[in-house]
């Protein structure tokens, strides 16, 4: 029964992916069913941009659903919410009017909310999961409120609830009106995308959900936030002025750096991946901001190029983050814990999962010749082209973006060395890790498929980039005038830069063969690690996740603001005997302390004042009714 539902969802995903790719290649269509959705009816339009995101949803749903067959092992929880989640995500990019979009968007949020609530595996986790789901619900509805306000404003200004009409009417709107609408829409979509400082729900909700759902949430759902931002910035309101681009660029820079810094100190494997999603959303926003600025400066070819880079990273992040979440799920399945300090040595017990997670880590750390490298390289090239814009203020913003991207790249490598190294290498740190078992075949198949996708996206950018360029050009109007490669090499803007990952891969293989040949014929011996004379080796002597991150905690202490907690219990007889020592080195979140806690307190204080008029006495309420009636009679 459960397996049947997941297979059916996988088939739906496959169909969606095929339809999406067809749409990207120009097979556009529209459909309208007046009676399904109130106020305007169900209205779907397929265009290249919608096709790309539909293909993404579909392509990610296939491995996630197959994975779920083994992961849930026939459990019946979430069997309605999961297909609804996938279907609503597929509907969001196709929606052509406000009502269809809002219904699909809200269905997606609600279905994922139920899946998050459902994620707890035992009562101990229940409280944390309930809190995560609550935060998610509050934040996502705050976002929905902002988004709907923006949309309602646009409806009243343009007199239409159809996106195609907005496209016609938007250029005639006053700049301040367009700006306000964009700000509201962007805030709403940024919540879903997890842009800092609206990200607080993401590191709570993504780890709490079952792993195949986490993969879809991080891989695809937050990309629909990006989709909304793309529509708001390039399509519905026309292409925006420079301050939109600068906003996106700076938000991207902050999200990228803060996201990776938070990921670096995390010891919960799935939370680490969730923070890393924030980082990657930031990288995507860098590309989008650059595209907006180039478009505003009258450089359509470069705008297309920057948007291609951003879209490429969207696709890549969907591939490797889904893979990593599925890998983390396999680890959770095998050991029963997400705490990296209780993993260790898993690469021996789980060779398939280990190899796939390794590949995903290398891809997300942007190591050539894998896919993360290609898209980050493209975004770098796009940002470096900022010298063509002759506006010093904008160039400073670009430079900040470049610096942020460079710092992020370095820290991401450290972060994923930690994620893979602590979880998978060395000796098992707990009984559970020592008894870990390899994932069942369906889970392995899903991970291998995604790993192959990462390799393919890395080796064949010349096949992917032209398709993305046509998508980007469909929105920006410009033709992809930048020369996008011939055969194996990706050539950009004349002789400025070129890249051939296939050549890099071949050169690496040749060099590896050469080095291996040089090292062949050596004598090898297997022996235990030298323990400085100690006979016993335990996992307590190993490098821990916290220790690995400690140098970074010190360097960036203005951000982490670590607290030292030392708690010593002395023996009651003498202070020279210690019975227990507890040491903690937790970090504090700036956003919790400076933004959300004050906001929450203010809300609570306001609620207390409002409480005064709600005494609970029926007599008082009757007086209110009478008073309201009198006021209406007098003034109306």
């Amino acid at each position: 029964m459960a397996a049947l539902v997941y297979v059916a969802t996988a088939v739906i995903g496959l169909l969606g992916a095929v339809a999406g790719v067809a749409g990207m290649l120009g097979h556009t269509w529209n459909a309208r069913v007046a009676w399904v959705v109130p106020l305007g009816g169900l209205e779907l339009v397929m265009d290249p941009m919608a096709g790309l995101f539909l293909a993404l949803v579909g392509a990610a749903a296939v491995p996630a659903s197959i994975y779920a067959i083994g992961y849930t092992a026939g459990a019946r929880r979430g069997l309605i919410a999961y297909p609804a989640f996938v279907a609503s995500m597929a509907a969001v990019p196709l929606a052509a009017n406000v009502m269809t979009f809002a219904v699909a968007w809200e269905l997606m949020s609600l279905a994922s909310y139920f899946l998050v609530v459902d994620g707890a595996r035992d009562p101990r986790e229940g409280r944390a999961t309930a809190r995560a789901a609550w935060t998610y619900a509050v934040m996502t509805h705050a976002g929905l409120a902002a988004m709907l306000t923006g949309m309602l404003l646009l409806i009243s200004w343009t007199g239409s609830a159809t996106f195609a009409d907005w496209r016609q009417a938007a250029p005639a709107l006053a700049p301040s009106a367009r700006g306000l609408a964009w700000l509201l829409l962007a805030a709403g979509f940024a919540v879903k995308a997890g842009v800092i400082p609206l990200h607080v729900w993401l590191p709570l909700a993504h780890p709490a959900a079952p792993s195949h759902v986490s993969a879809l949430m991080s891989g695809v759902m937050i990309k629909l936030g990006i989709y909304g931002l793309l529509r708001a910035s390039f399509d519905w309101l026309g292409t925006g002025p420079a301050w939109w681009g600068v906003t996106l660029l700076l938000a991207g820079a902050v999200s990228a750096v803060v996201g990776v810094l938070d990921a670096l100190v995390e010891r919960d494997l799935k939370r680490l991946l969730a923070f890393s999603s924030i980082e990657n959303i930031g990288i995507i926003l860098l590309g989008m901001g650059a595209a907006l600025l180039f478009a505003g400066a009258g450089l359509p070819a470069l705008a297309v190029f920057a948007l291609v880079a951003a879209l490429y990273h969207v696709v890549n992040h969907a591939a490797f983050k889904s893979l990593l979440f599925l890998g983390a799920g396999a680890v959770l399945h095998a050991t029963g814990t997400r705490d990296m300090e209780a993993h260790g040595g898993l690469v021996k017990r789980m060779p398939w999962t280990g190899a796939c997670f390794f590949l995903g880590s290398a891809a997300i750390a942007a190591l050539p010749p894998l896919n993360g490298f290609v898209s980050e390289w493209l975004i770098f090239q796009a940002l470096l082209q900022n010298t063509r814009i002759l506006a010093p203020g904008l160039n400073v913003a670009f430079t900040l973006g470049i610096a942020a991207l460079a710092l992020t790249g370095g820290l991401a490598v450290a972060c994923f060395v930690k994620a893979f190294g602590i979880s998978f290498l060395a000796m098992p740190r707990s009984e559970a890790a020592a008894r870990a078992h390899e994932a069942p075949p369906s889970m392995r198949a899903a991970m291998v498929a995604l790993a192959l996708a990462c390799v393919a996206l890395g080796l064949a950018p010349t096949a992917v980039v032209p398709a993305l360029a046509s998508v980007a050009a469909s929105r920006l109007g410009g033709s992809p005038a930048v020369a996008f490669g011939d055969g194996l090499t990706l050539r950009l803007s004349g002789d400025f830069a070129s890249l051939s990952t296939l050549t890099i891969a071949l050169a690496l293989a040749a060099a590896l063969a050469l080095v291996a040949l040089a090292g062949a014929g050596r004598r090898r011996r297997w022996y235990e690690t030298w323990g400085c004379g100690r006979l016993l080796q335990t996992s307590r002597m190993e490098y821990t996740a916290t220790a690995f991150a400690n140098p970074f905690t010190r360097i960036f202490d203005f951000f982490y603001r670590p607290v030292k907690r030392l708690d010593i219990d002395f023996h009651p007889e003498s202070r020279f005997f210690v019975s227990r020592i507890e040491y903690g080195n937790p970090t504090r979140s700036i956003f919790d302390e400076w933004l959300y806690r004050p906001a929450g307190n203010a809300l609570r204080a306001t609620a207390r004042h409002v409480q005064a008029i709600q005494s609970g006495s029926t007599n008082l309420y009757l007086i209110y009714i009478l008073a309201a009636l009198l006021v209406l009679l007098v003034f109306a």
Partner: protein
Amino acid sequence: MIEDALIALSQALVVALASPLLVGVLRTIKARLVGRRGPRPLQPYADIRKLFVKEAVISSTTSWVFRVTPYVLAASMLVAALAAPVLMSRP
């Protein structure tokens, strides 16, 4: 095209062959600056020769990552030398 490939290959060759000499010269100069005699500049070559014939002891707690990493490291350095402008910068 072929010219580019030849330049790249010669760069990797130069990096592979000459970098021990650079390390040796640096060590000699450092030693002289603090008043020691120091090893001769060609010492790293002798070290490498010795290391290549020594037996490798692999810890039993390690995995394939430990065995593969030295090769990957050396190979990626060589590939980086193909692209980095060591001898000449290409237009």
